[in-house]
């Protein structure tokens, strides 16, 4: 036991050989109560395990059925002398490849992906993402001004680089944000939903929409020399 300053202070033992004793003081003023309620609980065995097993089996059957009919592609033997046009990365990197079409490789290939990964990692460490306060709850005009400033700067930046496939979904999201600002409280369910979104919700949704558009465009709408093609007219399909 460490030296106590007065006789009511709790001491902390640092001697590993001694078993510490725990003492509970019950005062008369406070009655015992349960803090927080986790709600109904079920035993993981069998309730969770059974559900996991069913999920696994349904998934397995679904993959087997699709794999029976959908053949994995196999092209000609790799030939470094014969470059296909366009040469495409795997589909989940085609958003990045679409960015490469507009921006220099350092920006599209290194800086943007690094920023995205860093942004994802730091999400839980910023209070703006923790407090569930809607964007238009307080300081409405100030927030609107800030938002319009960001939108214009982003729009001009994307316009200079002629990055249309990023600009169009960004502007569409911008229109939605303005719409959510104008929505009256309790008008209908959808408007109420838009009105009560948080900043982090808007940023993430913007990111997902842009990433989806870029990936779809890169996969289906890009042909020789990364030119725009309509998938129903493209030759290779």
């Amino acid at each position: 036991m460490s030296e106590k300053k007065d006789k009511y202070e709790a001491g902390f033992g640092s001697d590993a050989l001694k078993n510490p004793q725990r003492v509970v003081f019950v005062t008369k003023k406070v009655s015992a109560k349960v803090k927080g309620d986790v709600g109904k609980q079920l035993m993981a065995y069998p309730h969770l395990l059974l559900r996991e097993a069913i999920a696994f089996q349904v998934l397995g059957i679904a993959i087997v059925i699709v794999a029976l009919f959908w053949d994995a592609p196999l092209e000609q033997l790799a030939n470094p002398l014969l470059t296909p046009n366009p040469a495409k990365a795997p589909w989940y990197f085609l958003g990045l490849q679409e960015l490469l079409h507009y921006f220099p490789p350092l920006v599209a290939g290194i800086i943007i992906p690094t920023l995205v990964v860093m942004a994802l990692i730091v999400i839980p460490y910023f209070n703006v993402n923790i407090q569930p306060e809607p964007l238009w709850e307080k300081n409405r005009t100030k927030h609107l001004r800030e938002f319009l400033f960001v939108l214009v700067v982003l729009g001009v930046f994307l316009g200079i680089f002629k990055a249309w496939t990023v600009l169009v979904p960004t502007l569409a999201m911008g229109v939605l944000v303005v719409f959510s600002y104008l929505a009256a409280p309790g008008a209908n369910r959808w408007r109420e939903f838009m009105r009560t979104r948080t900043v982090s919700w808007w940023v993430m949704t913007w990111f997902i929409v842009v990433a989806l558009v870029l990936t779809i465009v890169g996969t289906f709408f890009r042909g020789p020399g990364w030119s725009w093609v309509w998938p129903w007219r493209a030759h290779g399909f």
Partner: protein
Amino acid sequence: MSANVSKTSEAAMQWLRNTRVWKSIFRRGPAYTNRTRSLAIFGNLFLHWLPVKVREKALRVRASYYLGSISFHLFLVLIATGVLLMFYYHPAAPQAYRDMKDLRFVVSNGVFLRNFHRLAAQLMVVAVFWHMFHVFYRGGYRPPHEFNWVVGVLLLLVTLFLSYTGYLLPWDQLAFWAITVGSNIISAMPFVGKKARFLLLGGNVVGENALLRFYVLHCVILPLLALGLVGVHFWRVQKDGGLTVNKKDEREER
């Protein structure tokens, strides 16, 4: 008739669970009490990272759509089919491509095996992305889950890299040029770009060395890394108090 069969099989299982052999393997008898049901979880090496009890709300399909589970299940079937594919594969050019042809025309169910592995791999990328976005919209990254979110982001990167390294292995035109395009991006890194690409490819262009490196990464290093991170990820879910049950679920109760 069928009622009789199920009754008999139930009785047989009950007898089996009470045998000395069963008890010696599972360290318990039948799980008829909550104590033995708890033992079934924490007395089992392969289940001990699961919580003994789960909130009913966290079990509902809408709470997770089982996206995390599905990602893990896909990982398991990918290991199983991947090991089978390894029996028929040589990481050498152009033998790797000939092995693809063998899988198609010689090996029994070779086409199915490769289809299954490829489909599950594509689905895993989708499932992991979907899982992350779903967790985000539910606020599942909030304290005390911050670090598990970070582990999840790392798992997403490992998943993408696993898929990417697997992409080269068939050694056809599709594989070769996809990896060439991807690895050219790396060389845009300031100062170390060329060196980093050389390290990844084992040369200045995608060649035999790159195939071998991607094979080792794909079959050994990245799966082990993923397995370790998945362990941390699951363990932290339990330690951090289970799935996030948000206000929406609370409201439904009333």
